[in-house]
């Protein structure tokens, strides 16, 4: 039998029962839409994390005090009863290392920032000038903390966008004196907008020399040492090197943790890939349910059309002709449903985030579209083959008698 004719016959049969065909298709449409939508949310989250982490500077190794045995976990935020990392540790590894380009000691704290009658509790980052380049930050006006400022413990401060806006409004802040804790600092620079990265608002901070921060918080414990590697290929060598240098310095104890940005990235990637897979799997279940719907309706259809099958066989239809006719019907249901589902899924992935009150990154990927398409086609074949086979094996004499 001519394949065009088979297609025509199958389509006519589907169109003869429009409501039934649409409802059956709806099962597949919902399944495919769910696959596309959920995968695009998962992929969106993955890409978001990737961009954000790259935006925080690549090739970075972060040394934090205390030992965490698992690689790639998040660095601890508390500084408890563990051996400190000092400003000198930072200078030491920078001086002795052959793989590192920079090593920036960082002290992190919270202090009250005051200007005239306005005050604000704010994150204070004590650092050295190289921090600017490592974290990919930009100065809008004035200058950043200089090495001289660090060496002389000068009381200078660089304001993030939010800090500047809240305290000064439209007033010019450069050269003004602000009170940080109990000391007075001169504003030397204003930062450009950076935005929120992974929940940390880089605009709601102030920067001061690391030495001044030590004095301000009365500590010589570093929060972390951020280092950059000259050549990204030497990341692992650099880690080994820092370890060796610091262990020697810390009386042969490994009491610190080195985390690389790519560790964090790959951990997040793994988590989010698993999450995407789980979401796709759950959505896949609804696609399978849609497939069962197709099988169900095809079985009904075979029964209803028993006489038609008998007539076709009487005039010369072979097994194969009947099998293909019914198989095309089920595949058409699933593939057309799949295509509609892809359009709705991809469309809503793009449109829905605009109507949500919160930020939801979505990314429609080719692989999810292809997967959904071929999966739905496979569902049509898998769940269509049994009813189609049943139809093709009907006995022509009994079928002709069927009422």
């Amino acid at each position, binding site marked *: 039998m*001519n394949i065009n004719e088979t297609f025509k016959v199958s389509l*006519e049969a589907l169109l*003869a029962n429009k409501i039934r065909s649409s409802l059956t298709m709806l099962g597949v449409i919902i399944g495919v839409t769910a696959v596309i939508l959920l995968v695009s949310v998962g992929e969106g989250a993955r890409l978001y994390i990737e961009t954000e982490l790259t935006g925080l500077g690549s090739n970075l190794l972060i040394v934090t005090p205390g030992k965490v045995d698992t690689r790639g976990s998040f660095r601890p935020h508390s500084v408890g009863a563990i051996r400190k990392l000092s400003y000198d540790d930072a200078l030491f590894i920078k001086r002795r290392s052959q793989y590192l380009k920079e090593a920036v000691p960082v002290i992190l704290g919270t202090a009250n920032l005051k200007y005239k009658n306005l005050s604000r509790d704010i994150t204070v980052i004590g650092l050295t000038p190289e921090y600017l380049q490592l974290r990919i930050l930009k100065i809008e006006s004035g200058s950043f903390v200089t090495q001289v400022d660090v060496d002389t413990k000068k009381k200078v401060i660089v304001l993030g966008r939010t800090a500047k806006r809240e305290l000064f409004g439209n007033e010019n802040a450069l050269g003004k004196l602000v009170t940080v804790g109990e000391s007075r600092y001169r504003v030397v620079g204003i930062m450009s907008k950076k935005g929120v990265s992974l929940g940390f608002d880089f605009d709601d901070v102030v920067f001061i020399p690391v030495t001044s921060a030590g004095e301000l918080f009365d500590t010589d414990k570093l929060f972390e040492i951020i280092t950059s590697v000259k050549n990204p290929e030497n990341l692992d060598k650099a880690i080994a090197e820092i370890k060796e240098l610091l262990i020697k310095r810390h009386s042969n104890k490994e009491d610190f943790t080195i985390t690389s940005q790519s560790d964090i990235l790959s951990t997040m990637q793994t988590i989010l890939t698993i999450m995407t897979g789980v979401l796709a799997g759950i959505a896949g279940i609804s696609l399978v349910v849609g497939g069962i719907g197709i099988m169900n309706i095809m079985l009904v259809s075979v029964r209803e059309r028993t006489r038609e099958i008998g*007539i076709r066989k*009487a*005039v010369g239809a*072979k*097994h*194969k002709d009947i099998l293909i006719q019914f198989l095309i019907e089920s595949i058409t249901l699933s593939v057309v449903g799949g295509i509609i589902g892809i359009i709705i899924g991809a469309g809503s992935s793009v449109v829905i985030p605009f109507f949500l009150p919160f930020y939801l990154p979505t990314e429609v990927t080719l692989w999810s579209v292809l997967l959904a398409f071929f999966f739905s086609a496979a569902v049509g074949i898998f769940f269509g083959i049994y009813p189609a086979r049943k139809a093709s094996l009907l006995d022509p004499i009994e079928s002709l008698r069927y009422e």
Partner: protein
Amino acid sequence: MIVLKDIKKRYQMGDQSIDALRGASLVIKEGEFISIMGPSGSGKSTLMNIIGCLDRPTSGSYKFDNKEVSQLNDDELASIRNEKIGFIFQSFNLLPRFTAIKNVELPLIYSRVSSNEWHKTALDAMKSVGLENRLNHKPSELSGGQQQRVAIARALVNNPSIILADEPTGNLDSKSGEQIMKILQGLNEDKGVTIILVTHEPNIAQFSKRIIHIKDGAVIKDEKVTNNRK
């Protein structure tokens, strides 16, 4: 053309087995017009199904055009039905969703005839039963007699060598029934198509040239009709 020799057919129904045919033998030559008559349960439908290659005998030999067909598989039988046999049923058996012309085209789509000849071939068949102005009517829009004529057109469309008609007038009033019989008679006389008719109405059987009586699964009487109806 058709040689049946000692055909037996046994059906299994649960624990019971029923012998529908118990050694029927029959020879039908090309160009004959035969009626098969018999009470219900006599095995005439089973015999029809075997002659029509819809069913296989349990034992015995069936030669169709000198070819043994009793043991062919389903697809081989389907080819023979498609190319050599036309069926006409008591209940017409047209596809209700299709127009008359599409119904007539049905055997062609399973044949080797190329698709651009389907319409013309089907149209010729519709003309030969006088329904060329009812091409796009659905079966429900046609009278019983017209539906049976569409069924005859469908049976004719592949130029079969035999037409099997199973009680073709059973669902028709006597006038339409007569019309159908005259068409069949015409096909037999003008085109030489072999026609095998199953009926239990003696006056319908009178249209044919030979009557076979069947009882209890065997041929009990084979008579010539000398003075057949026209």
